[in-house]
């Protein structure tokens, strides 16, 4: 891979756009196709492309294994935690209307955005953890 100048330059150009597109898919999911799951995959793909071009160790330097594994658990915990929070405010599990926000539509949207963040973190973390586990064995 060391001599593939074209690949390296194109990857450098593409990776920021892939990552930004991932977050666009995430935060624009209310209005266009997408959501936390698709966004998580796209963001993970940006890191995987980086790992393919510049090597696994470089990628692990930027997105360490520990962070990836943490993301996976934190994502699931965010989702579960939102449900517990709606409990604490006296609603049913994952009933966003119970959130302490005056406008019921806004409370729904806040709930949706929060759990989508959880989905994004869990999916990105899980895919990268699996990728690191497979790719790390080859060394």
């Amino acid at each position, binding site marked *: 891979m060391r001599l593939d100048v074209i690949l390296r330059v194109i990857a450098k150009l593409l990776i920021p756009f892939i990552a930004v597109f991932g977050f666009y898919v995430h935060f624009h999911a*209310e209005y266009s196709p997408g959501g936390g799951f698709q966004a998580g995959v796209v963001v993970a793909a940006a890191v995987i492309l980086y790992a393919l071009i510049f090597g696994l160790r470089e990628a692990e330097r930027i997105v360490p294994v520990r962070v990836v594994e943490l993301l996976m658990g934190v994502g699931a915990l965010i989702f579960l935690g939102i449900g517990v929070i709606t409990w604490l405010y006296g609603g049913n599990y994952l009933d966003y209307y119970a959130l302490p926000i005056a406008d019921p539509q806004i409370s*729904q949207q806040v709930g949706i955005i929060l759990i989508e963040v959880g989905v994004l973190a869990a999916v990105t973390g899980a895919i990268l953890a699996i990728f690191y586990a497979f*790719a790390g064995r080859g060394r």
Partner: protein
Amino acid sequence: MGLLTLLALTAVGIVRLRNLFAVVILGAVYSFLIATVFLVLDAPDVAMTEAAVGAGIATVMLLAVLHLTKTEEGKPRQPQILPIFVSVVTGAALIYGTWDLPPFGSPDTPVHTHIGPYYLEQSIPDTGVPNVVASVLTTYRGFDTLGEVIVIFTAGIGVLLLLGRARRPGRKQ
């Protein structure tokens, strides 16, 4: 129809080829074709997922696995009669099942008369979210999505347990 023909051709190619590298790439082609089919069926969310996961991530994972094994599939030891029998019978049963399906796009099927219209009418008043897929996934069916996330989490944990954590940089090699 053209798309489905291409799908069938790709599947035949995958079965016949012995070079696993080519099989993986054809698998990615198959995923892109399926994603296009989903797009034709007006399901851009599913199409996006299929293109990103099936054609992107799964291909990279399989290539990473190929790096660990041989890239040539071994010759089968005996003629593969039982697998052919199983696939023919399963395929015939599935095709027989499609005869009972309502015509494609028919508006008076349960899927269009049961709870679908409620979601379409109530998504804006309930949540103010115009993308009904998003509001169904996260609000009306939030619990299912929670289960999905737990499945992904469990898959990640399972792979980590089976393969061991990726080696820390700098410890070995």
